[in-house]
């Protein structure tokens, strides 16, 4: 596959930033909940691949904290970022399924 993990992380992070950085209106609790559920589902999928990242977990926790404080704009932004991180970790796990053999000492 020609795309590298670093490129993917940058693209996903930029998409998350672009979608979260310019909210037309204040984010509702319902919108946050939907975004958080999507991020959480991606992180669960990373978990089934035994490849969760500490940064995803920390970003999900920050999202929950912001939501608990009633700051749904920040909570949404963190949820989107967590989703991007989780998706990158899934990509990494799938990409490495065979690729690890390329660096094996033979």
């Amino acid at each position, binding site marked *: 596959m020609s795309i590298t993990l670093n490129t993917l992380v940058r693209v996903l992070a930029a998409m998350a930033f672009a979608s979260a950085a310019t909210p037309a209106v204040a984010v509702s609790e319902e919108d946050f909940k939907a975004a958080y559920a999507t991020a959480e589902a991606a992180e669960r999928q990373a978990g089934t691949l035994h490849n969760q*990242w*500490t940064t995803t977990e920390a970003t999900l926790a920050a999202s929950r904290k912001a939501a608990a404080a009633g700051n749904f704009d920040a909570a949404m932004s963190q949820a989107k970022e967590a989703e991007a991180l989780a998706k990158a970790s899934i990509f*990494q796990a799938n990409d*490495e399924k065979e690729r*690890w053999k390329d660096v094996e*000492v033979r």
Partner: protein
Amino acid sequence: MRVRPSRQLASNVVALVVMAAAAGLALAAETPDPAADLKAFQNFFTKKFPGVKLEDFVNGPYSMDEDMYRQWEEKEQFPPYEFALEAGKEMFSTPFGNGKTYADCFPNRGIGIRQNYPYFDEKEGKVVTLELALNRCREANGEAPLSYVNDEMASLTAYMAFTSRGKPMDIKVPNDPRALAAYENGKRYFYTRRGQLNFSCASCHVQSPGEHIRAEVLAPALGIVNALPIYRSEWSGMGTTSRRFVTCNSQTRAVPLEPQSDEYRDVEYFLSYVSNGLPISGPGARP
């Protein structure tokens, strides 16, 4: 064009033979060959570091840097793991509530056996590490298991390693598909990149031993488990093999697995097997 039946038959036979040979080659390529891996692994390190004797790789970063080696020799006069050895010896000989001791759970009463762990348990169909065997011993004698990442487990394994110092690592991978699968799983884990920093165990310990990562000199993977458990100045204390794996994962920003999960047991099995023949040097001391 018409083809004569005999020629057609011959060409079919040839095609079948070629296909069978190709399938055989593919199968051979996929079948784990631990002995070939061991040879390649040890050759890789001895070629990469021609000035380092094979048995010196167990001294980790000290084998890579002359100044550090001299510092280590001096440190060994009053080693920082000494207190753990004393504590481990006492724990090892103190009877459980039922009057038995750890010695009752192990071959040769637990003395000089570190080099045989981990082993593949054919009954269970899984890898058994020394840390796991110690906790199983406790549980079989009515005691609560110890944490895999705390001082008590490190002290016990430090004492057991110390009684085995100098003995060559002697790990067996039986010709059992389950053992070969566990070995292969450990190898896969070792070479697989993970965490946000996109590092595998091999990124540091195969591709970069002797290089600095911040202030640390990276240890070679060859012989790395022979020195465990270790006292780390960075931790201001002792660390078990489990703690080492958990910390490595965290440092790459990967969520660590549970200590003594199948994958950690398998990666210890792989790393120990490819270090066969190198002496046990644990407990070690590292910066």
